[in-house]
């Protein structure tokens, strides 16, 4: 009985925190209205955004008041409870964010949810026709990516929530701590993130983009999102300086915030020792020439053009951003396959990127190397295996390798399941792998499969893929299992 009461009181707490985050999402939905100052001609759209924002704040407030009824002092949140809060606040935010797309653009629920999930998860696959969409909708898509990149719980922790938030922080796949306190860590993340975005806006502007496009592209690049205001993405501008700015921003976006912190403190040598940075440099130096000389040299005969195109597409796939300067549909099979592999690898842990994450890949390759090395060492020798993470040496234990290997297997399993669904709809194996790898890794590159005409089953498969990829599977499993277990317990002990 006592345990049941305890469980119920925990759920009141969960409801309270979820309420706070959904209220915050409501404020985010209202934020595009700030741009009415610059575009007063779109004032007619304001009620739609106010409706969605109002509903969201009301729902959040209801949850908050309901949860505050049973207030217990000094409670701590475990990872499982944090997972439940993160998932429900994400679902809430996704639901309410979809409303403007439905009321303004007259899109169906399926398409709107797809678009919104693509925004919040920083994927960048889109069903909206950007040439006709109003400016407010365009900026709202970019704002979703900006907030989704940092993570709802992280933003909420940095400003609103009380300090008991370790479980929440871990649940949103932001496991590296920058400073020895959650609140300071999240505030530092927001500072770094906002600083880069503002810098990005000015860089784009000086490279010849209009102010509106600069704001949109900067938010979408640093969050590794990839929504563009142009139908043919960055390729529209055909400008080298804009491409260079994009490359820099995507590169910054895909680096772990803890690593950024090392860099900002001026520790260049520790920065280059970092596992993820090493893997990234290796991949660039290895794959760029392979793609250039074994596959794309017939398509782009000029060396400089070949390098420019190849390097941009590699970094857009690796950083899981999804801006592109060309169309992948005409690329040779081998080049597309390499891009699929890069999309599976993805960005850095604790960054805004998706995919399996470079850290995990690096660790698995290292562990294979360690295994082989140990085979040839004397029988009683002891070795201590480590790699560099953030600013510190990290000694790797077997348990950690097991966790990472499990994650990779689960990721690949989901990938193949999604590809199977796509092929069942009659798409070719290459298209299926490319599209679902792009959705699951929250990349947003498309080979042309996703369009408003695509069947609903495909759209939902990709929607679920993006959601799983962003929140990293396990917390969704934890949250689901905990909900079912607790529900059964409460029902049984009435």
């Amino acid at each position, binding site marked *: 009985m006592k345990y049941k009461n305890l469980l119920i009181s925990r759920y009141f707490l969960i409801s309270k925190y979820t309420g706070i985050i959904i209220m915050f999402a409501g404020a985010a939905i209202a934020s595009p209205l700030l741009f009415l100052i610059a575009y007063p001609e779109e004032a007619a759209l304001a009620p739609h955004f106010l409706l969605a924002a109002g509903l969201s704040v009301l729902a959040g407030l209801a949850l908050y008041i309901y949860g505050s009824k049973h207030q217990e002092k*000094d409670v*701590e*949140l*475990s*990872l499982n409870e944090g997972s439940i809060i993160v998932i429900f606040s994400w679902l809430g935010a996704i639901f309410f964010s979809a409303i403007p797309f439905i009321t303004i653009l007259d899109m169906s629920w399926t398409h709107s949810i797809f678009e919104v999930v693509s925004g919040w998860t920083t994927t960048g696959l889109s069903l909206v026709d950007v040439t006709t969409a109003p400016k407010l909708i365009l900026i709202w898509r970019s704002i979703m990516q900006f907030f989704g990149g940092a993570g709802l719980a992280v933003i909420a922790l940095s400003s609103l929530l009380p*300090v*008991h*938030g*370790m*479980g929440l*922080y871990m649940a949103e796949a932001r496991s590296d*701590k920058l*400073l*020895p*306190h*959650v*609140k*300071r*860590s999240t505030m530092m993340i927001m500072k770094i993130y906002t600083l880069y975005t503002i810098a990005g806006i000015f860089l784009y502007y000086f490279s010849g983009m209009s102010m509106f496009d600069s704001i949109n592209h900067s938010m979408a690049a640093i969050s590794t999102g990839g929504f563009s205001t142009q139908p043919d993405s960055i390729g529209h501008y055909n400008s080298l300086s804009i491409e260079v700015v994009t490359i820099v921003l995507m590169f910054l976006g895909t680096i772990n915030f803890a690593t950024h912190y090392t860099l900002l403190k001026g520790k260049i040598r520790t920065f280059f020792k970092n596992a993820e940075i090493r893997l990234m440099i290796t991949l660039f130096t290895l794959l760029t020439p392979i793609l250039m000389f074994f596959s794309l040299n017939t398509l782009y005969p000029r060396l400089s053009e070949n390098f420019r195109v190849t390097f941009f597409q590699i970094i857009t796939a690796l950083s899981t951003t999804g801006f592109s300067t060309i169309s992948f549909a005409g690329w040779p099979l081998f080049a597309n396959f390499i891009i699929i592999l890069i999309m599976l690898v993805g960005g850095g842990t604790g960054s805004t990127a998706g995919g399996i994450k470079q850290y995990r890949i690096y660790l698995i390759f290292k562990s294979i190397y360690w295994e082989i090395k140990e085979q040839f060492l004397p029988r009683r020798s002891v070795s201590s295996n480590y790699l560099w993470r953030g600013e*510190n040496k990290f*000694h790797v234990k077997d348990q950690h390798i097991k966790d990472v290997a499990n994650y990779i297997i689960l990721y690949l399993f989901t990938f193949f399941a999604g590809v199977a669904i796509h092929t069942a709809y009659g798409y070719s194996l290459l298209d299926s792998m490319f599209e679902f790898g792009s959705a699951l890794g929250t990349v947003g590159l498309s080979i042309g499969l996703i369009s408003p005409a695509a069947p609903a089953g495909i759209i939902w498969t990709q929607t679920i893929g993006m959601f799983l990829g962003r929140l990293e599977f396990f917390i969704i499993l934890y949250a689901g299992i905990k909900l079912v277990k607790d529900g059964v317990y409460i029902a049984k002990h009435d």
Partner: protein
Amino acid sequence: MFIVIIGCGRTGSLLAGNLSRSGHEVVVIEHDPESFALLPVDFSGFQIEGDAAENDILKEGKIESADLVIVSTGNDQINYLVSQMAKVNFDVPRIMVRTIDPAVEKMYENEDRVESFSQISLLAENMINKIEREGMR
């Protein structure tokens, strides 16, 4: 405040949990990784596994920028050594040391910046106070 806690046993983990919850930045240094399990779930500071008597481990915990160092291992010799290292090598402005054997307290008597807390003296003092307040019954 930035606090480094050395030793994460029952005392260290309790201190670390409460200080982290009230908003301080806390780093815990402990030799035995299993002891970290004593920390509460919402402890959000750093955990460093290693021997605090090594300079490099203290440096990893950024002890030179600490506002306060709490030394609470279960060994008086180590406590004394670490408190001296914190004071002399790293110039920490304030050091709190836990002592096991009340006799050791004397060693800290004339040290500036170092305060010692003896659990046994505190216990005895508490009991004596209570006896004196309530009188013999």
